């Protein structure tokens, strides 16, 4: 039995179909890239899959879900709010505890944010904010990672580091991506969507970037 499974899933917004009768299975250990034009249904499919296993999955949504007034450290720490009693969380909110900073720091080094530990999110660039959201997801220490364009604003060099960090720290990964090269490089399987239909479902090894061009044609 697959880890995640959809059978004949159909989603409509205001009468317009966003996903058409879609069936799909994802096994443990797979690295899935969802590709397709914007509006093809990637985010909807990602959220549908996330809802199935949100208890042991980490999510980087499109809007990132960061608290803008809080520091990078606090936003990453939020990945483990459920692991500590409330009083401990509140103390750590008012005065960051060394023990927690020491745990968060290695992840911030992985995503290249070690110099921004105590900067508030609103002071950061879009790419830095995305890396904070990824760090929070990694800190959550789940076996499954869901990301909706998690590196779209990160520069090219760093996007590889961040993608490696995501892959290395999660067994199963489901990402929606618009960067085709990146999608092929860090996935084991590509799922292509067009106008709410599943039009591609292939192992990444057998694909070239040009094979995906069809997804982006009208």
């Amino acid at each position, binding site marked *: 039995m697959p880890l995640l499974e959809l059978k004949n899933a159909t989603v409509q917004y205001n009468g317009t179909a966003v996903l058409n009768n879609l069936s799909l299975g994802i096994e443990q250990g797979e690295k899935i890239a969802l590709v397709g034009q914007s509006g093809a249904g990637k985010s909807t499919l990602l959220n549908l899959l996330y809802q199935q296993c*949100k*208890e042991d999955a*980490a*999510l*980087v*949504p499109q*809007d*990132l*879900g*960061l*608290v*803008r*007034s*809080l520091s990078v450290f*606090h936003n990453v720490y*939020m*990945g*483990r*709010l*459920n*692991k*500590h*009693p*409330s009083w401990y*969380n*509140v103390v750590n*909110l008012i005065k960051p505890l060394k023990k927690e900073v020491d745990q968060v720091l290695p992840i911030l080094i992985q995503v290249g944010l070690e110099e921004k530990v105590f900067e508030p999110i609103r002071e950061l660039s879009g790419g830095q904010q995305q890396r904070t*959201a990824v760090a*929070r*997801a990694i800190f*959550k220490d789940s076996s499954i990672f869901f990301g909706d364009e998690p590196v779209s604003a990160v520069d090219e060099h760093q996007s590889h580091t961040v993608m490696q960090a995501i892959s290395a720290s999660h067994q199963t990964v489901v990402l929606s991506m618009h960067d085709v090269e990146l999608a092929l490089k860090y996935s084991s399987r590509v799922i292509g969507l067009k106008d709410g239909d599943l039009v591609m479902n292939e192992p990444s090894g057998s694909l070239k970037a040009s094979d995906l061009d069809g997804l982006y044609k009208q």
Partner: protein
Amino acid sequence: MTASISSNGFKAGSKPRPLLRISLGFLVIALVLGLLGDFEITTLDPWIEIERMVAGIITPDFSATEDLWSAVVNTVAFAILGVALGNAMGFPLALAFQFRAVRILCAFIRSVHELFWALIFLQVFGLTPLTGVLAIAIPYAGIFAKVYSEILEESDPAPLQTLPKGTSSISTFMFVRMPDAWAHFKTYALYRLECGLRSSAVLGFVGLPTIGFHLESAFSQGRYSEVTALLIIFYVIIATIRKWVHARLIPLYIILALLVIPWTGELATSNLVRFFTYDILPHPLRVAETFDMGTLSALGAWLSIMWNEQALPGIIATIILTQVALVGSGALTLLFFPLISPKFFNTFGRTTGHIFLVVLRSTPEYVLALIFLLLWGPSMLPAAVALALHNGAIIGHLIGRYTEDMDLRPDSPKGLNLYAYDVLPRLYPQFLAFLFYRWEVIMRETAILGILGIATLGFYIDSAFADLRFDRAMFLIVVTAILNIGIDTLSRYIRGRLRLRTTADVV
């Protein structure tokens, strides 16, 4: 699109100008009420008093009484303790604001002006610090609860969906809702402290040892040099508030305030019980031995006399004064805001404008009214002018700052043309939003001007307290509160209809 036009009540093609229409409507109402109301100058020769005032203004006397500095210290201490306690009570109420009972309680306690709370607590606690602190803290708690809950509602909910399952509600609240709200809380609390200083000063007029106490005697004896000195110190305290208030210093200030406040007077709990279980009961109920038809008809007669002879005339006078003062505030706002706007004046002109507006908005409306009353004699005129100047300065300040961020095209006209064709049309919705927000505040203020002898509801309340008829006072306070809540509801309805928005930072 069609739906939104028809739901607004305007037909397409008829060039709807709802903002203009509502403004003209309020103007006409105010003019008609102005003719009905009692607006006149009754003093025979106001110039004598004006000369004495001007003489006082140019010769401020800081050594007039040795009590002057202790009055200033008391004013600040009462304000700090009152606002701090109001904050401490208002915050938990804000968290429970989804409950209807809490919302009604808060609407009621904030609709009663702090001077009336002071008059109530004077009967219960006497002239003790508790009276002054609670008179500020209770209505402010209601205001804090409302504004804080609005601020919390505006925090971004997006982070909620990424929180790990099992996160406690306390952790969720502290990490997701509090951080964004915190900066707004601080800004708003600081603004409230400024209001608290004014409230604290005014409490002196009912006998508490703040500067209002000295202002009243100085005014009544014409010692205008002393008045000027007191007011100058007060302006300096308010104008420098951002310099001396810091979050870290607040606990220290609270401790200092507790130390300096004069712990005089005796606290009798028997008063408390008697006041709330006996004194405020309508007279027929107090004297009745059994509750029968006779009691009921006596109560009916009491209510009918109270309504016809006090509540109704009071309500009419309150509404007349409110509407005239509201439109006056609007007119003065439009006159005042360019004074501090970089679109109209250079740095020197704006500095002068700022000082002028700070003086007008820092002077408690009660003091302004007292000045005009001395000049013009008793009628609604001094009260209306005082309210219009005070509120016009407050909204003018906000609107003036609003023009700072306004971008003008490079070839925009100058002066009056710029004002009429560009700036005014663009800020008009914001202006109306602030003015309607202020409507209920103006009404609350008209009621307290009754204490100066203007026959609003406050006049009848004050007289009832003076005659120790607490049942009448309580009845009239409840009537006043209901009237205020009604205006607040009407204002919210109109703002909704016109799609006007105000930020929570401004009240």
